[in-house]
């Protein structure tokens, strides 16, 4: 892929170009359906954030986490409840939701993280199901299946955000923050420890990496990112419902990172950018009877990717090679 080369040449320029393009989007002419397109793209970016968050666990640390949507839901309900009962602003809610997510991440992670791959997956899955069950049945807290309607919109300097492009910019902003967090972690001691665990747990241990601590850290950070995404989601939709946080979501997000390339940040985002609008394309293309079965495609993506290109569109190795290349530039040797 040639423009990946370009990315290697001057990644910063390329990146800024993308951001600029994104900022430009709402003002392009689209035959009256701007808001619709923007809404779809907002969803896509939201899933980019989610994918980046999930990526930390299976991508960086190499553990299959099927319970991610649980944290997403926790974040959404934290945000919704805080907004309704204490009408807090988004800027207070985001960190609180993140904290709550991290807390639950640690509570779940600490005891389960020593399990072997597939048992871990199953336990996380059970966790997310339990979260949904609790949300469903604890009416006094979440109003259960009645959902949580009438969440006030976020405000910026007293001016409430209602238009679609405003939300688009907001989620872009969140994406940039998360992106910064993830990249910085990736290039730090923590990130290296994660990669080491992913590559070879025992060798990592013998290099002085404290498995449990770093796994729990990864889990907590991933959870808090998920919760932040959830917080935004609640503020954006203004209505949340237990059905929005079903197991499907976890699979969908997993599908994004598998498709894009587990462990490579660019890949994850690319995956989200391709697969999420896909479902809208399908809505336009498929007849209604087939549209309800569109998850079939995602299942197929998982299987085929694993069969023919398990490393995804932008493989982890290539990301690492690029990093090495940049290090070479830096050291000038």
């Amino acid at each position, binding site marked *: 892929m040639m423009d990946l080369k370009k990315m290697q040449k001057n990644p910063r320029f390329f990146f800024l170009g993308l951001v600029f393009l994104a900022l430009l989007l709402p003002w392009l002419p689209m035959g009256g359906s701007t808001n619709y397109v923007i809404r779809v793209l907002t969803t896509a970016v939201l899933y980019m954030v989610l994918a980046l968050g999930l990526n930390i666990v299976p991508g960086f640390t190499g553990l299959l986490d099927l319970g991610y949507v649980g944290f997403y839901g926790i974040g959404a309900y934290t945000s919704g409840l805080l907004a309704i009962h204490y009408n807090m602003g988004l800027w207070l809610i985001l960190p609180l939701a993140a904290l709550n997510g991290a807390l639950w991440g640690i509570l779940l992670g600490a*005891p389960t993280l020593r399990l072997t791959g597939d048992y871990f997956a199953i336990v996380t899955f059970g966790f997310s199901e339990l979260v949904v069950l609790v949300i469903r049945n604890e009416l006094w807290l979440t109003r259960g299946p009645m959902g949580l309607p009438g969440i006030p919109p976020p405000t910026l300097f007293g001016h409430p955000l209602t238009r679609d492009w405003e939300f688009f910019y907001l989620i872009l902003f969140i994406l940039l923050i998360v992106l910064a967090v993830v990249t910085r972690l990736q290039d730090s001691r923590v990130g290296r420890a994660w990669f080491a665990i992913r590559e070879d747990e025992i060798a990592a241990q013998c290099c002085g*990496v404290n498995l449990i601590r770093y796994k729990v850290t990864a889990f907590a950070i991933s959870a808090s990112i998920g919760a932040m995404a959830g917080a935004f989601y609640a503020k954006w939709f203004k209505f949340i419902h237990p059905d929005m946080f079903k197991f499907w979501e976890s699979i969908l997000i997993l599908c994004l990172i598998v498709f894009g390339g587990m462990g490579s940040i660019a890949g994850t985002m690319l995956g989200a950018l391709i697969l999420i609008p896909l479902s809208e394309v399908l809505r336009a293309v498929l007849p209604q009877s087939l549209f309800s079965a569109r998850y079939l495609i995602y299942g197929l993506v998982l299987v085929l990717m694993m069969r023919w290109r398990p490393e995804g569109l932008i493989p982890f190795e290539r990301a690492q*090679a690029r990093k*090495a290349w940049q*290090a070479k530039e830096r*050291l000038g*040797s």
Partner: protein
Amino acid sequence: MKPVLTVTRLSKSFGGLSALKEITLAAHPGQIVGIIGPNGAGKTTLFNCLAGLYSPTRGQIRFQDRAVVPEFSEARAHHIRRCAVLFMALGLVWLPLFWSFFLPAAFFKVELVLLGIFILAMRFSLMRGLMRFQMWAWGLMVLFLLSDLFFAVWWLIRLSPSVHLTGTHIPLRCLAWPWAIGAGVFSIYLMIQLFTRQVRQIYGFRQSPDAICQMGMARTFQNIRLFFNLSVLDNVKIGCHARMKAGVWGALFKTRAQREEEAGVEREAMECLRFVGLEKRAFNLAGALAYGEQRRLEIARAMASRPKVLLLDEPAAGMNPRESSQLIRLILDIREKGITVLIIEHDMRVMMSLADYIYALDYGRLIAEGIPDEIRNNAQVIEAYLGGGPSHAPT
């Protein structure tokens, strides 16, 4: 002078067969200690015990007057775990039933949540050997139990059949209360027993591999265990991990300290690579290296943690004579840095030319020790090796 590493009467058995029997050895600073023996003699098992990957069945390992493995028995650890699990299972079984008989479901759910938290805490602490944490968990549990008993008595005092609660039935309640209280008392008893045991065990857990690496004991592996998808440089950087401080916050906010540390580590990593002669390949992926290079990279990674003791597990395996002579020079250089080297090697030429002192193992038993010449002429060793086939005969 005092030995840097001492192993006393170390034994390790997998199920029935014992891989190590009563091994006792010592390594002095700046020494190159060789460990030889035919296949299956338990050499690698010994290394795994030293590096903390296995927990020995019996025996003691001391590293610079610090206990890597204190006088410790697996059996006792298992007993603790059994008690703990039994206790939790009991809690899981009796609390729900008990509550479903006596109190409305709301209380019961709260109880289950608390129990859940308690169990997570318990599990976490058991796993990590964080005993203080565990005592807190127990304190919590005591509170639950006492409150339960209190409620039970309370309900029994006012036995009004009119109370409308989930499944409150007089006959069942009459059955329930002695049983519930009995269970409560029993679990409290169990708890106390556990408590005392744990207190005795507080410092009784072996060090984990990462802690051992922190102490300054690094190792390489017989079957190469590199991080193949990472760059050579990053491999060595991870080797430096043990000495670094930067945590999540440092990474997020790129604090000055963190930046300086990163730069320093990068420099040192390059030095390590230069030391083993891999600086040219620093920016390739480790997977792309040749076999010999990968072996040297493993050594570089181990060196990066500035160890006091270096464990080399068959470093010369599969090397041609030129490479292995290079290796010998490398190891001698390492010794020059004042690092103690424990080395497992089949290639007797390498071993005899390197080692200051040699321990010979066979079937997990120490059959001979001494300087190379003694070993070379030791009848038992020769016998063991001839048993292993003449090709291995010491030269």
